[in-house]
């Protein structure tokens, strides 16, 4: 019964309950409503690393819950949550010395795409791309961020974002063509 009740509430109503009374059921309803999307998002950003993706989702929700009172509702809750997830991903990449805002020099395809006769799909191609290419493709072509939004989120210029997308799409096509030609 309480599940049904909370499921009918809007994100804002649930968030208000969490902020005002630490309502656990309301938090769980929010979590269940948005986690599948957030998890898929970070799973893609991490190139399919489920452990890393879960850590990111956990950190995202902890920060979101603790910062709910400061959320001004000028955007959708999901947008805000995904922004936190992206920030967490950036932070993790920074800690691990992974570059997600630029790809320099040559890069090498690792894993099954390099195997003769192997056909890969788009999801696999995204996993095989360098983090920088993958990030820009996920944000722009999968999630629908504009160059300006990506620039703001990643701290890069629109021009850098565009050239990164250009290179990323070329790389993705290269991977898919290799896979298709050898199939």
């Amino acid at each position, binding site marked *: *019964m*309480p*599940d049904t009740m*909370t499921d009918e509430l809007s994100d804002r109503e649930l968030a208000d309950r*969490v902020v005002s*009374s*630490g*309502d*656990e*059921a309301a*938090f*769980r*309803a929010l*979590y*269940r409503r948005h*986690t*599948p*999307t957030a*998890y*898929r998002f970070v*799973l893609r950003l991490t190139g399919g690393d*489920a*452990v890393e*993706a*879960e850590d990111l*989702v*956990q950190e995202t*929700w*902890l920060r979101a*819950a*603790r910062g709910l009172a400061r959320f001004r509702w000028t*955007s*959708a809750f*999901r*947008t805000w949550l*995904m922004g936190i997830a992206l920030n967490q991903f950036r932070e993790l990449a920074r800690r691990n010395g992974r570059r997600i805002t630029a790809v320099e020099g040559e890069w090498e395809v690792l894993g099954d795409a390099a195997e003769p006769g192997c056909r890969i*799909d*788009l*999801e696999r191609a995204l996993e095989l791309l360098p983090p920088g290419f993958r990030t820009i493709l996920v944000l*722009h*072509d*999968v*999630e*629908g*961020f*504009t*160059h300006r*939004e990506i620039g703001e989120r990643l701290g890069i210029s*629109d021009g850098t974002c*565009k050239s990164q*997308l*250009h290179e990323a*799409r*070329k790389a993705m*096509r290269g991977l898919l063509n290799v896979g298709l030609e050898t199939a």
Partner: protein
Amino acid sequence: MDGGTPRNKGGGDMGDDIELTPEEKMAFDNLPREASPSEFLEERIVRALRKDGTLRGSTDAGRRLRPWVVAVASMAASVVLFGSGLLLGQWMGARNAEQVLLAVREQDEAQVAQRIQEAGSAYVTALVALGKLRAGVAEPSAQAASEIRQGREVALGALYGAVVELARITPGDPHISQLLQILEERKFQETGIVGARKTVWF
């Protein structure tokens, strides 16, 4: 991005010089939008938020575990109860009623650790016996193979149940969390391959 609704898919904003083909756009459109993390992620997060006071009060809503978790936990609990019950029965049989009642009153909580140790010893001893059974049969019959497999499944179920309980007792322990995660991943992998698991009733 606005409320999770893509509005720029396929590129085209600000003059990209590589446009996606209709097939590529469709491939991006068809990518799955959702995925489910492991069962216990929610519990980990809720525990952390309870601990720092962000969440207060615990309701039953949403705390229901999936049926397979309940089944495994029940099985594990059955194994532990069976083992400790057996040991308790032997122990009680060796003493007269008056002494037993006195001991139960006096020891109670202090005996918890001892019971865990006894149940643990029984668990390990049973596994050693299972190992010997397996090693001693070069080509087991279908029935023997089934019993060995059942024993292994019950052992893993008990181990999993024990780790779940340990994680509840010490939510901040990173080693326990890792162990839980490993067992969980294994469980998902096995569930995907093997399908329905057998339930052993005591």
